[in-house]
Each structure stands twice: as C-alpha cells, then as structure tokens.
C-alpha cells in the first residue's frame, strides 16, 4: 500500500478518533499501573510475607486468562450487576461504556506484565546496597526512592514498555466490558475489527500504526535494558564488605 494512501487513510475520522482514544486511555492506564504496581512489586520482592505468593498469583492471573474471560471478570466485578456495581452507582461513578471502562480493561490485562518484570527487577538488586543505605541513616522511603528505584529503573522501564504494548493490543476485554463507540471507547484494535469489511485500507493503515508502535516499544525495551544494565551492576567493593549477608 503506497505511503500516500496510508497517510490519507490515517487521516480519516475513524483512525484519528481511534488513535486519540487509544493513547489517552493507555497513557492513563500506564500511569496508574506504574503508581500502583511499583510499590506492590517492591513489597512482593523484599518482604517474605505469607500473602506474598497469593498476591503475586492474583496479579499474574490475567496473564493466563483469555481476554474474553477477562472481559467477563471485569463485568462480574465492575458491571452494573457485578460485585462493585452497586457501590459505584451510589458513589456516582459511571463505569459503563466510557473511557474509564477502557482504562480498567487495559490495567487488568497489562498490569501483570509490569508487575512481574518489576518484581524480578527488585529481586535482582544486590541486597547490600539498600542495607548500606540504611546504615547511612536512610528511612524505608529513602531506601525505596533513592536506592532501589534508580537501580531497578532498567527493569522497570522494560516492564512498563511491555505493559504498554500489551495494553495497546487489547481487544476482547475492551469490547466486552467497555463496548465500541467511535471517539469514546473504540480503540485501534476495535477500529481495525470494524473497518476490515467496511474500508480495508483504513484497517490496514491502523494495523500499520499498531505494528510500528509495538516495534518501537520492543526496541526501546532492548535499548533501555542494555543501557541500564551497564550502570546498575553492584559495586564490587560494597559486595565484599562485612555487612553483606
């Protein structure tokens, strides 16, 4: 398909609306995943609580669920007749057929990708470094923000990129839970599905955008991992100090 046609197909209303909806919802979802997922991953990586395994399993569950089941799960939890439906209603929060629903669906399917990678990243930290920071007077918060986070940043970045790519491609849970309406809930994946027997050129153009974005995301994962791995290796002198356990 000639590039000129691709660009003009992308300028159609359907494509533009889908791009806006997708990036709006996915960036918000990613932000929430990072804010909520990072502390959770740190806790799971550093604490030896009984609940750790349970929490990790729950978080990873969406990984093995087919997206359609994820959709049903979301409906069962947040749907009008679901567990939290009544509560949300009384609080005046509308979670049906709008961007909030899309954000929830993306968080549900993409967060395991981030949390899993984040847990590994935190687990891979040399434990002597946070210990050294504590002996130097840093509180738990200080240890987290000034030692653990910067050192694990490479792994966290890779996890975030994976989660973002997964969220971009989400289809089943979104269409079941949020529905599909151009300009409101129709993401790039939903737009492709609707357009492929209406205007194949538009569907093709949107697919090209998704492929390009996914490729860029994977590439950035590789680059970030390589860059950070050269700067987060433990300092040999600290590792051999009497404080290491």
């Amino acid at each position, binding site marked *: 398909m000639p590039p000129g046609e691709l660009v003009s197909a992308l300028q159609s209303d359907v494509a533009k609306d889908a791009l806006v909806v997708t990036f709006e919802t996915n960036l918000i979802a990613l932000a929430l995943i990072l804010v909520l997922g990072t502390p959770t991953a740190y806790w799971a990586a550093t604490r030896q609580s009984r609940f750790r395994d349970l929490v990790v399993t729950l978080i990873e569950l969406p990984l093995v669920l087919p997206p359609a089941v994820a959709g049903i799960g979301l409906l069962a939890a947040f749907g009008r007749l679901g567990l939290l439906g009544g509560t949300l209603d009384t609080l005046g929060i509308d979670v*049906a*057929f709008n961007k909030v629903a899309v954000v929830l669906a993306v968080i549900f399917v993409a967060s395991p990708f981030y949390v899993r990678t984040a847990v590994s990243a935190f687990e891979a930290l040399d434990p002597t470094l946070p210990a050294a920071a504590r002996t130097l007077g840093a509180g738990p918060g200080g240890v987290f923000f000034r030692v653990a986070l910067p050192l694990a940043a490479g792994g966290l970045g890779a996890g975030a990129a994976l989660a973002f790519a997964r969220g971009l491609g989400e289809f089943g849970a979104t269409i079941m839970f949020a*529905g599909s309406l151009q300009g409101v809930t129709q993401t790039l994946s939903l737009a492709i599905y609707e357009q492929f027997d209406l205007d194949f050129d538009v569907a093709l153009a949107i697919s090209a955008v998704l492929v390009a974005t996914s490729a860029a995301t994977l590439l950035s994962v590789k680059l970030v991992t390589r860059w950070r791995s050269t700067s987060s290796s433990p300092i040999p002198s600290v590792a051999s100090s009497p404080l290491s356990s």
Partner: protein
Amino acid sequence: MRGRLLAIAGLVAVVASAWLTSGATARPSATPPLTIYAAASLTEVFKALDGAQHFSFAGSNALETQIRNGAPVDVFASAAPLNTQRLFKAGIVDKPVTFTANRLALIVPKSNPAGIRSIYDLRSKPVKLVVAAPAVPAGGYTLSVLRKMGLSSVLSKVVSRESDVKAVTGKVALGQADAGFVYVTDARPVSDQVSVIRIPAWAQPRVRYEIAVVSKSPNKTAAQAWVRMILSAKGQTALKHAGFLPLPKASS
C-alpha cells in the same frame, strides 16, 4: 533418561495421531461434517437442527468478508440478502435462496433501570442504548426501524455498536445496557433476563435471510442437501418454533 523421553514422545505421537484420525473412522459411512457460516441470530436454531455440522456464527458482514478471502466454507446463511448477493455477483457462492424472515424488537433488562415502556420512551428518557454496528444486518434493520418511526434522533443515545446481534443481547441481558435492538428470536433464549417491547408491524423492515452453497465447496452435494433440508418442512418447522417468520406467500 533419553530413552524414557523418546518413549514418552512416541506415546504422545501415537495418542495424537489416533485422536486426529478417530474423526475419520468413527462413522465410516457418514459424510464429513460441513462447515457452515451463519448469521449470529441463527445460533440456537441451527445447532438444534443439526448439531453434527461445524458452525461459525458471527455478524453476516464479517462472515462475508471471511468467505470472500477464501475461508473453507460449504454453506453461508446470511441475515440480509446484501451479503449473499454480493458473494453471488462475485461468483463465490451459487444462487442464494431466501429461507426465512424475522422481526425486530426492543429489549430491556428485567430490572429495567431506565424505565422504558415503549419505543417512544427512548426519545424522552436518558438511556444507554446498544445496537449492532451499521454494517451488520441487525444494525441496518435497526436504522430502518428508527427511520420509519421518525425516531432516528434516538441514535444519539447509543453507547456501543456491537459486531453482532448476540453481543447486543448479551449486554442487555447482563444489565450493562438499558436497552437494545435485536431480533425477536434473540429475546427468546434470554427471556428470563430481558423484557421485550414490541415494535409495531408498520415499522418493521423487510427482513429476509438467504442461504447459499459456496461454489468452491469440496462437499457440494452434501451442502446442497443441507440447504434443501433447511428449506424442507423439517427446517421450516424448526425455524417457526424458534420464532422466525414464515416467508410471505409471494416471496421476493
């Protein structure tokens, strides 16, 4: 260890090949099952009529695209003549035959959160309305109904355009949507979860289902026999019991 692994692999291979070939030898005299692509609204009635065939149910427009792009299908049953006729003009299916008709209805969840009692309420009350996408036959028929009743303004209340009519039914049955336009036949299987609001006969579009044998089908004789079965008393009675309409006397 390697010997044990080889033995396990061999066992898996034997079991797998036995399973794969069992379909062919189970009933030596029976014809292989046909692959039938049919409109979503035909799900219950076709499965009940002949559970032995391989069915794929979806919006007729999606099925048309798949067949056009070479899906190995024997029979195509569409909820609108447009899809079968387009494939016929392209030489992909043999001449289609009209085999049944249907009517549209408005369904609301049993709890009726938006308090909809008639179609005209859609205009005056806030409502989360779900319809099929315009390219789907049910979606096109919905637009016809609203146009005939002078109620197209109601489309501003649509919160989702679904890819087939069963998705619309599902969202209303689950209580997620306040109302949805479906065929009367779709309301029946979920009659304990939805209430049906009749659409007057003068507003109904001419809903015609067509069935055709795919020209390149490797099982043409069996496919033609299946189509004949649908057109026979057996098929027509089953359709009538499911709520489909008999064809008018002077069928188009």
